[in-house]
């Protein structure tokens, strides 16, 4: 097997499909033309409403081996994936490739479908039980994980062809105009689903809020939707929205946020700057502190790319930032703002960070603050596996935000409970060290040696500056050196870089 640019041995074939080894960001040029979908013709009539999922699946003619897709705007409150997959199982269709943007613990009912023949593989993020089951070898074929933008690229390039896109729609009209800002299961944007609506051979909207024609605003337009299926409930609002997200109260996490803030202040803070916001505890704290600092200094940002929360919305409405780009809303404040404020803009995921496009939002980012499960002494980051080897998380937008941002900061505690976070080698490489600039821990920061400008900017700061190897040693000194987790030779998942090259693989774990 070839060794890739981060020193990992990777196969050249996954599930019978050829993949190149990771060669570095923007080192593998694209080839070919964008892929298309089946050209369809709508029959006469003013309604695309079909009574049940079973009926629509039979109408479309879903067959063994086909690919079905889903979006994850409803997150851990989603009912649609389970509903559709259960219908497929009942009809007796086998060997389905499931192609979601992400799955959550709520999708645990898919676990038995991995072994009963319904699902041959999942290509998408698997947060929790499905990832764990896959780690123990439950999936017949190999899982493929892509970042948000990598998934868009895969669809546009034809690497993945979607036969049927099942799109959860918080609001729909009978002719297939959809939005996510109204209805009992409102989720905000429908950004993840846009590429599916455009490129799938067949498209089905599933809604619990059917409104008279035309639904408005419109996120996904009628000419891309073949069928509309009304159901009782597409989701549980408790799981869709995170409620009011709270800033971390942990003193050490707050210290990390303050150190990160000082790096931003010294390196990037100026009028018109831009940054990526997230919903993690440290990330929220950085956003909040940054807002306070901007107010104090009289600085205004040009845009925030989100991951939108109340904290971001408050900054927009206070006039601290001109524009919010929204690919995912985390609370009802974000949903309301998206609906009402013209400077809060819903962005298709194709605009986010696909390297094989004419340029994404991430390329305009001055600052990206990201988390990690592990970081190693080469600044490589793992967000997919735990240190015991279990695959438990997706990639999200980690790769493209890190690659695009002029200043990429990884905020992590030195260790979590007894597990060192800064390590000699990460268990799995999600994001290569070449696109990571500063690692911030509660003990101090480590700057990527190739960023002389940041080293210079931090001169005279009270923030302790460490060599990353010393940070790693400190972590091992506190926790003790961990054993090498015993994994088996079978590859259960491939981790793709955003350009579709293989950056790493995940091995089966012995139960």
């Amino acid at each position, binding site marked *: 097997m070839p060794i890739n640019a981060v020193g990992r041995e990777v196969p050249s074939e996954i599930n019978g499909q050829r993949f190149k080894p990771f060669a570095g960001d923007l080192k593998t040029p694209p080839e070919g033309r964008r892929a298309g979908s089946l050209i369809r013709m709508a029959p006469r009539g003013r309604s695309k409403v079909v009574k049940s999922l079973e009926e629509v699946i039979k109408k479309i003619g879903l067959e063994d081996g086909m690919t079905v897709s889903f979006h994850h705007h409803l997150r851990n409150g989603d009912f649609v994936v389970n509903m559709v997959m259960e219908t497929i199982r009942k009809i007796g269709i086998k060997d389905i490739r499931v192609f979601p943007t992400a799955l959550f613990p709520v999708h645990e009912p898919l676990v038995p479908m991995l072994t009963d023949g319904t699902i041959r593989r999942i290509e998408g993020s698997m947060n929790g039980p499905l990832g764990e089951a896959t780690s123990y070898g439950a999936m017949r074929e190999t899982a493929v994980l892509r970042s948000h933008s990598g998934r868009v690229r895969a669809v546009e390039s034809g690497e993945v062809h979607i036969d049927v896109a099942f799109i959860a729609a918080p609001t729909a009209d009978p002719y297939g105009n959809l939005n996510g800002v109204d209805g009992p299961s409102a989720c905000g944007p429908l950004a993840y689903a846009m590429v599916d609506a455009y490129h799938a051979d067949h498209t089905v909207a599933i809604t619990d809020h059917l409104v008279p024609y035309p639904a408005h605003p419109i996120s996904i337009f009628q000419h891309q939707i073949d069928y509309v299926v009304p159901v009782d409930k597409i989701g549980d609002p408790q799981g869709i929205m995170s409620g009011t997200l709270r800033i971390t109260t942990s003193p050490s996490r707050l210290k990390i946020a303050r150190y990160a803030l000082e790096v931003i202040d010294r390196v990037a803070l100026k009028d018109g700057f831009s940054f990526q916001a997230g919903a993690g505890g440290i990330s929220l704290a950085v956003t909040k502190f940054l807002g306070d600092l901007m107010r104090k200094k009289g600085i205004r940002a040009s845009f925030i790319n989100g991951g939108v929360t109340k904290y971001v919305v408050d900054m927009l409405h206070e006039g601290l930032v001109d524009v919010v780009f929204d690919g995912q809303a985390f609370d009802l404040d974000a949903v309301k703002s998206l609906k009402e404020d013209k400077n809060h803009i819903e962005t298709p995921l194709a605009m986010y960070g696909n390297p094989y496009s004419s340029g994404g939002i991430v390329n305009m980012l001055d600052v990206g603050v990201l988390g990690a499960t592990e970081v190693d002494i080469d600044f490589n980051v793992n967000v997919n596996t735990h240190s*015991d080897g279990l695959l438990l998380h997706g990639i999200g937008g980690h790769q493209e935000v890190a690659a695009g941002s002029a200043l990429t900061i990884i905020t992590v505690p030195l260790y979590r*409970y*007894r*597990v060192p976070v800064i390590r000699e080698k990460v268990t799995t490489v999600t994001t290569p060290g070449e696109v990571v600039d500063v690692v911030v821990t509660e003990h101090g920061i480590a700057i990527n040696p190739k960023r002389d400008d940041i080293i210079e900017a931090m001169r005279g700061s009270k923030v302790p500056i460490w060599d990353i190897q010393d940070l790693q040693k400190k972590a091992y000194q*506190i*926790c*003790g050196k961990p*054993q090498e987790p015993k994994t088996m030779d079978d590859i259960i998942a491939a981790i793709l870089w955003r350009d579709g090259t293989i950056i790493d693989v995940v091995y089966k774990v012995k139960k």
Partner: protein
Amino acid sequence: MVEAGTHEKGDVFVSIEDGKREVIIKSKLERLYGEAIRDTVEELTREIEAKIIVEDSGALDWVLRARLEAAIRKYRGEKI
């Protein structure tokens, strides 16, 4: 039977009861620190002829040592 510690994350629960020497260790971090935990438990309880149960929720080594010491002292009826 004596007990020390809790089942909270980052802590470890230790119990010692009369009986033949037997050491039972359960840890969420078995794959990463199973050997290290066994070494510490062995080192500190070597002379205890009793049933020792250690349920670890990710405690650092010095936390484990402190909990073991507390349990041993309680078992011996010493003051803590």
